[in-house]
């Protein structure tokens, strides 16, 4: 029943899901960095930086991820000659372009998650800390950030799970990940339902444990108010 799976070796089923995992990890780390920078701008005391953060988030959130990813290939690579350090290896180039697109898109959501986390800390906490005579660094490192980090885990976990599912969009520029392999298999093989179930199972395996664990963690660490 599962014989047909071994007919596919470029990539194999596991190889395709490994590509999904790689896309998730690289874009996850990248968007965490870029998203943190954006969040820092959005809450900074400099109005111009706040403005830039807001504009970036509102523009990027409203463009479909598909448009961004397809543009990295047809626009950045084909027109502007952005080769991402891999001019001859098109598989690697596609992978890096997809990661770039995913970072640009996901960072907007990371930024919003971080900002909402900071906003859950009541102003009175910081005011009390300032009244005690703590300076800016102390207020931030002792009072605000420890509380903000705890309330940010839940929203960030959601962003991570959404990112895992969004990596399938990389299929639109031919990155050999799970969705692209599913498209090829389901078009060529007769077992439509079985193939659908196998790939669905793969994604459930990827997202379910992550979701359960991070959800448990965020509840455990939540600041009781």
């Amino acid at each position: 029943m599962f014989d047909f799976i071994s007919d596919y070796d470029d990539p194999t089923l596991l190889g395709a899901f490994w590509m999904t995992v790689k896309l998730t990890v690289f874009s996850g780390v990248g968007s965490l960095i870029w998203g943190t920078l954006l969040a820092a701008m959005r809450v900074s005391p400099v109005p111009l930086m706040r403005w830039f953060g807001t504009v970036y988030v509102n523009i990027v959130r409203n463009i479909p991820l598909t448009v961004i990813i397809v543009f990295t290939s047809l626009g950045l690579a084909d027109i502007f000659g952005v080769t991402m350090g891999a001019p001859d290896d098109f598989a690697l180039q596609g992978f890096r372009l997809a990661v770039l697109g995913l970072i640009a898109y996901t960072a907007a959501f990371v930024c919003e998650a971080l900002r909402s986390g900071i906003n859950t800390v009541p102003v009175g906490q910081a005011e009390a800390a300032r009244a005690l005579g703590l300076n800016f660094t102390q207020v931030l490192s002792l009072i605000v950030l420890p509380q903000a980090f705890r309330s940010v885990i839940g929203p960030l976990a959601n962003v991570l799970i959404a990112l895992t599912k969004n990596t399938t969009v990389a299929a639109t520029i031919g990155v050999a990940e799970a969705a692209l392999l599913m498209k090829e298999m389901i078009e060529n093989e007769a077992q439509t339902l079985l193939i659908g179930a196998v790939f669905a199972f793969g994604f459930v395996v990827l997202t379910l444990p992550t979701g359960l664990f991070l959800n448990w963690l965020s509840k455990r660490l939540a600041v009781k108010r």
Partner: protein
Amino acid sequence: MTSVLYDAPGPRAKRRNVILSVVFVAVLALVLWWVYKTMDDKGQLEWSLWKPFTQSEAWTTYLLPGLADTLKAAALAMVIALPLGAVLGIARMSDHRWVRGPAAVVVEFFRAIPVLLLMLFANEFFARSTDVSSADRPLYAVVTGLVLYNASVLAEVVRAGILSLPKGQSEAAQAIGLRKSQVMGSILLPQAVTVMLPAIVSQLVVIVKDTALGGVMLGFTELLNSRGTLAANYANVVQSFIVVAIIYIVLNFLLTSFASWLEGRLRRSKRSTGAVLGVDDVDELNAGEVGGTFATGAEK
């Protein structure tokens, strides 16, 4: 302005902010100049590449029909997913375990799977098991994929909407002797609909964005897909991407603004219980958080 992070600025902080602003403007200007220079070097600022968008042909032949298909798929998906989601959401709150359990499994399953997988599967299913014509198939597949995913998200919206109502509502209804179906049908659901309205409108943004997947992977002739035909005709890839992105931004911005306006109106309204499922709550529900709880308007 004071916030959690910093106090109202004194003289030293004001001076520092001015310096930071100047540095930031310089960096931003440098980046913008670099983008301009690159565009110019590659000849992307030639008027001939932008000119098609000032004439009606590009709009009437490519962009507007594409936009119409995008909106058609989004509207169909929403109209079909809403009642399905309501049924699933209410089933998930049933007193009977054999109703609650399967509903929960269905909802969590479809939220955990990428919508692209659902579209690909639906496309193949329609090709093999039904006699839907190959011209209609992309639309059917896109709508089916969107319905399966969004019905389960909306199920959670419905559940959260009903749970956000004050407990006194159902208790009072039970006290005057209403049956379970009457409590749900005449008391909870009508109030929950108003609570959910902003969340439903912002879910439309998610649906509109996901239709673009069908354009690339299934050949559905929506906005992003017609951009390809347009660019093939006028040879203006970058320009067409920018115009299409602007269309998406304006469309989704209008939807988001409408949702926020609804939310604000409902929060202020004296007749409601004050419970609202806000625009931000939708982001949380879309991720497929398992067994998650989320802040509802009542608790904020």
